[in-house]
């Protein structure tokens, strides 16, 4: 059996912004663990246990969605591409991919356009959906969350998918796709289960 642990992090200067909120002073002292049908166990403390009790250590995603993320990353290379997969609230099942504009149009940074993000918020609210996956690309580094990614991660229920086009740019060639949970400033990689 493999165990994925979510560790509480303490304040540090490099991941201040949102990880500050894991400060022990108010963090609920709750622990919870879940085991999925394949025997993977997730242990959670504090925030994760309260707001994301159904976390499992795997992202189950359709092949067409994986291919669509890769296509988006290639099109926008060398700038970072970003977007979401949304699904029914509480389901943890991504059903719809939405490309988002990188308002920064940058090879080293991304930010959803605030108006487009608000439109997404309203559309999801009307449909009873939530963000299941937040994806973005790294165009010159590996598919691992950067310090900025960790510091700004603010969707604790979401899987964070990184697509690296560093090896192939806009052309066909090797790309790396990896998935993570980022909660309370702690990163844990998870498996991707691609479904046909």
């Amino acid at each position, binding site marked *: 059996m493999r165990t994925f642990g979510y560790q509480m992090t303490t304040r540090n200067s490099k991941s201040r*912004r*949102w990880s500050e*909120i894991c400060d022990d002073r*108010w*963090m*609920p002292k709750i622990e919870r663990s879940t085991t999925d049908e394949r025997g993977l166990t997730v242990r959670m403390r504090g*925030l994760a246990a*309260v*707001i994301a009790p159904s976390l499992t250590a795997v992202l189950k995603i359709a092949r067409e969605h994986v291919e669509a993320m890769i296509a988006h990353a290639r099109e926008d290379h060398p700038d970072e591409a*970003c977007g*979401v997969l949304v699904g029914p609230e509480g389901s943890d099942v991504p059903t719809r991919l939405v490309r*988002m504009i990188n308002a920064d149009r940058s090879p*080293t*940074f*991304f*930010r*959803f356009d*605030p*108006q487009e*993000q*608000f439109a997404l*918020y*309203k559309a999801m609210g009307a449909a009873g959906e939530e963000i299941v996956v*937040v994806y*973005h690309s790294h165009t010159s580094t590996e598919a691992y*969350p*950067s*310090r*900025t*990614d960790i510091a*700004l*991660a*603010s*969707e*604790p*229920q979401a899987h964070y998918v990184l697509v690296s086009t560093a090896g192939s740019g806009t052309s066909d060639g090797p790309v790396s796709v990896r998935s993570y949970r980022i909660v309370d400033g702690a990163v844990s990689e998870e498996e991707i289960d691609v479904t046909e």
Partner: protein
Amino acid sequence: MSVEVRIPTILRTFTSGAKAVHGNGATLQQVLDDIEARNPGLKDRIVESEALRRFVNVYVNDEDVRFSGGLNAPTADGDVVVVLPAVAGG
């Protein structure tokens, strides 16, 4: 009547899990001060040095307050304030 403030998932630990809280005030600043009294710590996640935090988006009735006065944006009974942390990274 009062102003409804919708709280993102990541900040619901300040509101005992509530998705929305209500406050009174004629400006966004006053509403945030009012809800802070019952949800201590919440305002600090939205405001920094008397301005909105850079990576938090706030909308009053569908309008991004960065274009309508920031913390001084006017609010009235029945208005809806939405707080959305920016989705961003590097």
